[in-house]
């Protein structure tokens, strides 16, 4: 009967710690409602892969040979092979996005670009901490504030840290309401946060909304070809939404597709959370660097807005720049709330939503640009 105790006798303290990590992710998902669609399957998956001789991952069995585990199979088919899962997720995300506020106020798109600086600042910081350029770039992309982009870029670049990167990206996205106010207050005064902005949106035709995703895909494809899969899937989802002849598919993409792919993505990413590769000093460093990436993004957006104010007659509330990250709609809500804290009559929501949507476009472009540049530098 000793075979019944083989698992128990082969349990290491690192595996027990990973059960704790998995339990904590499940707790955060259920009790704190932090990105539950992803953190819950990741937490459960962390337990699955760290059970001794777990059948959920590929094992070599005596007398039988190699037996493929479901999580490894999902990883190979869904992520390693053409990054299918993150890209499918982008179709759903694209179907969720209304580019109307951006089309109505085009200059807001510039904030999306500025706020991506946090990615590159974090890459530099990571290299100073000893990471090679591939791992540093994979860690820096946490600053895209976009979970699927982070997973895709780190996978394509072949980083060893895809698990911690995914956890950091999704955790800090959920923590935007805590991180951004802190970072914004570091670089703004109450007087600046109280700046009011009038909202005079232009009328946008249906044709413009349909042409936008097509043109953006073509433009991005020519300037940054590596971004085509990311931008293309995002814009394809948006085209389904805006064409108005596929409403049923649009609803499915926004709900069923997103939920299902996120669920599978979460548990699949967990296959990389094996104790021996997860419990390292590098994991802690990645969590710290991910936090810095969000802070750098926020500061860069605010500083860029202040820079534009030097040349503009109508002042922009610098906090709008901080909304240029991809964490939608959390970031826009944070800016609206902070604006009203500084001046109860200040309504910044629509401007912030426009910048936030710009951040969603810019983050996938940033992912593509990094994929295009990093191989040439290593």
């Amino acid at each position, binding site marked *: 009967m000793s075979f019944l105790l083989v698992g128990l006798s082969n349990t290491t303290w690192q595996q027990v710690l990973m059960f704790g990590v998995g339990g904590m992710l499940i707790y955060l998902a259920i009790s704190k409602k932090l990105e539950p669609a992803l953190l819950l399957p990741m937490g459960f998956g962390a337990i699955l892969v760290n059970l001794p001789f777990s059948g959920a991952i590929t094992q070599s069995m005596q007398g039988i040979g190699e037996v493929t585990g479901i999580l490894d199979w999902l990883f190979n088919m869904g992520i390693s092979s053409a990054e299918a899962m993150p890209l499918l997720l982008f179709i759903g995300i694209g179907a969720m996005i209304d580019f109307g506020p951006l089309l109505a106020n*085009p200059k807001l798109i510039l904030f999306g670009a500025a706020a991506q*600086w946090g990615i590159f600042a974090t890459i530099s910081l990571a290299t100073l901490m000893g990471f090679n350029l591939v791992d540093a770039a994979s860690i820096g992309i946490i600053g895209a504030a976009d979970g699927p982009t982070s997973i895709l870029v780190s996978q394509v670049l072949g980083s060893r840290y895809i698990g911690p990167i995914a956890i950091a990206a999704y955790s800090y996205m959920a923590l935007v309401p805590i991180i951004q106010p802190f970072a914004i207050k570091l670089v703004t005064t109450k007087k600046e946060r109280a700046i009011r902005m009038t909202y005079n949106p232009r009328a*946008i035709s249906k044709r413009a909304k349909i042409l936008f995703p097509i043109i953006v895909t073509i*433009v991005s494809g020519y300037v940054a070809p590596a*971004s085509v899969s990311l931008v293309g899937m995002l814009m394809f989802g948006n085209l389904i939404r805006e064409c108005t002849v596929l409403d049923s598919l649009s609803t499915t993409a926004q709900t069923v597709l997103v939920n299902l792919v996120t669920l599978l993505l979460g548990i699949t990413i967990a296959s990389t959370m094996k104790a021996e590769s997860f419990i390292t000093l590098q994991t802690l460093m990645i969590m710290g660097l991910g936090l810095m990436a969000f802070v750098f993004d926020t500061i860069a957006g605010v500083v860029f807005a202040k820079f534009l104010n030097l040349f503009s007659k109508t002042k922009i509330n610098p906090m709008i720049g901080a909304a240029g990250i991809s964490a939608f709609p959390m970031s826009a809500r944070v800016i609206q709330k902070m604006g009203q804290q500084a001046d109860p009559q200040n309504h910044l929501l629509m401007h912030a939503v426009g910048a936030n949507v710009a951040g969603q476009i810019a983050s996938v472009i940033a992912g593509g*640009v990094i994929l295009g540049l990093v191989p040439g*530098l290593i």
Partner: protein
Amino acid sequence: MSETFFLSLKLMGQGMAGIFAVILIIYVVLLFLGKPKKKAKQDEVQQEERRS
């Protein structure tokens, strides 16, 4: 300072330039797409008048 750090600075320069380049083109596209139809038609009429 390590060589990797200087490479990361190069990546920062090229990356931000690349992102701004794409975004600026999209900005121009947005301006074009958002151009009011009436105004566009008025512009066309004015251009035709000038030609004639």
